[in-house]
């Protein structure tokens, strides 16, 4: 028998074993690369500043010190930043859910004059780069006397075009028979929207709500132009300002890392429990 006949299956066999190993190695390496900065952040937040700067780097604290977490509240109004972020996040999310779901309901269910054109127009506003509208939008807020206020931080963010689109898609999947039955019973549009459609759309509302909350919680640019007073700064803004004070960073690395960790914690925890809503929301907004 010619040896080549044995060679072929062995090659195929090698390939069959080789490719999955390479795939696994790639995925694991990338996963480690994704996780390491987070792990380093958490471990270092329990180190003394001298320990963080030790050369060569050590992964684990020489001595676990929780003091950084106390210091966070001493060297900056961290509780205030947190409170501001929560207030702005909740206001933005609730407002967005209200106005977006109303518009989405009309676009999905009500046949009114100019509907399709308005829907197209609203969707095209997505394409406007927001740096173009940023300066006048800031001037509008300034004119309204809303600089350094919660409404100034929250109100513009309530407009979530992607949210309108996603909610409309979802409302269209609700069988119209249910609404028709309610109509026969004498309910009006507002009642049908509030009592029938919204309760049925909880998963879609949760998805859009989480996207809005995350966007608000993580946003930097808008708070940067709206909040000039330290007392009105949100978490990303407060941290960015502190991180930019280079001298401060050198001296209080541990506290800055502790603050950074605390700032991402709420969204990460929500994400761990409601992962599928995040992934669906973002993937849907990506795929249209």
């Amino acid at each position, binding site marked *: 028998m010619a040896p080549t006949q044995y060679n072929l299956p062995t090659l195929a066999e090698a390939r069959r074993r080789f490719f999955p190993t390479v795939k696994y190695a790639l995925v694991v390496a990338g996963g480690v690369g994704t996780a390491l900065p987070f792990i380093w952040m958490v471990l270092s937040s329990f180190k003394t500043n001298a320990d963080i700067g030790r050369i060569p780097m050590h992964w684990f604290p020489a001595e676990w010190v929780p003091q950084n977490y106390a210091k966070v509240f001493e060297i900056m109004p961290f509780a205030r930043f947190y409170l501001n972020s929560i207030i702005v996040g909740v206001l933005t999310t609730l407002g967005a859910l209200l106005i977006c779901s109303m518009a989405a309901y009309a676009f999905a269910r009500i046949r009114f004059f100019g509907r399709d054109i308005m829907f197209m127009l609203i969707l095209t506003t997505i394409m*406007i780069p927001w740096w173009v509208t940023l300066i006048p939008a800031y001037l509008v807020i300034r004119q309204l006397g809303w600089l350094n206020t919660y409404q100034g931080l929250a109100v513009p963010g309530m407009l979530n075009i992607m949210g309108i689109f996603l909610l409309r898609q979802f409302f269209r999947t609700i069988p119209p028979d249910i609404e028709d039955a309610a109509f026969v019973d004498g309910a009006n549009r507002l009642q049908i929207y509030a009592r029938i459609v919204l309760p049925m759309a909880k998963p879609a509302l949760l998805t859009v709500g989480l996207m809005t909350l995350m966007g608000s919680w993580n946003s930097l640019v808008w708070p940067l132009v709206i909040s000039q007073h330290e007392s009105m700064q949100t978490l990303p803004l407060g941290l960015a300002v502190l991180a930019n004070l280079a001298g401060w960073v050198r001296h209080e690395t541990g506290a800055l890392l502790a603050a950074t960790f605390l700032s991402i914690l709420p969204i990460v925890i929500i994400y761990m429990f409601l992962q599928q809503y995040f992934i669906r929301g973002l993937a849907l907004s990506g795929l249209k």
Partner: protein
Amino acid sequence: MASTAAESGGGLVARVRSRLPVTNRRDNIAGWLFISPVLLWILVFTAYPLISSLYLSFREWDPLFTDEYVGLANYAELMEDRIFLTAYRNALVYAAITIPLGLVWGMSVALAVQHIRGRAFFRALYFLPTVTSSVAIAIVWSFAYQQDYGLVNSLLRYVNVQGPNWLGHTQWALLSISLVVVWAGTGFWMIVFLAGLLDIPPEYYDAAKVDGATSWQSLWRITLPLMSPTIFYYITNALITVWVQFEIPFVMTGGGPANATLMPALHLYREAWDRLKMGYASAMAWVMALIIFIITALHFGLSRRWVNYDR
């Protein structure tokens, strides 16, 4: 474009029906009332600012003292502004690094993770930077890039490489920032690519296998062509976002050293809020919009040659 795709899903009858004039007065009123809050928001925070910023771009304007019509002087000044040109040159380099790298890496990870055990775990892990604020990411990575005790150089030391001062050196800073952006975006694009991969009918691969195709051939002849709409979406998005990157350079380098990481959006912010040249900054914003528009139009035009929409 998104809405036409959605509309066409409704079938012929529904489509014809929705074109018919609506005569129900109650529905007209209800419909406009329901969309009125969103319209108000768009008027105040999108439409008016859009016009206003065009108006400002023809003026020398600051919120306190100056307001003067200058015609196209702001635009003319921009063309001579070396820092402005530097910012765009940086953005080009940044685009040339992040767009291909993000695509290849995101696609590789999506392909690799597709049929692996523990897929859900890895998907969740890779997605973590997407839910984390850019500021937090930038802070952690500024330390990771630190020359002596930073994570990156410490890992390089394990393999006996002496890493550079990543953020402090003009030669490395822009690359360093670009890599952070790719790192942060991988999870999101992996999810998008995975969704695209799921849409490919498995029969195609079976047929290819029967015909004796290797997995490498299947990748190039089946997977990538059928993924072209998703790749198109990735590039569309990337071509827009590269010009508006702000947070990462703002926190990590402040645009330095020596403007090596200055980006168009960061430059615009500085002119508008640090130097209060809001007319000038508005002209910058319109140039940015114009560049995005032209590039997007080119990209859409070229897409006919390589994006494959029939399955």
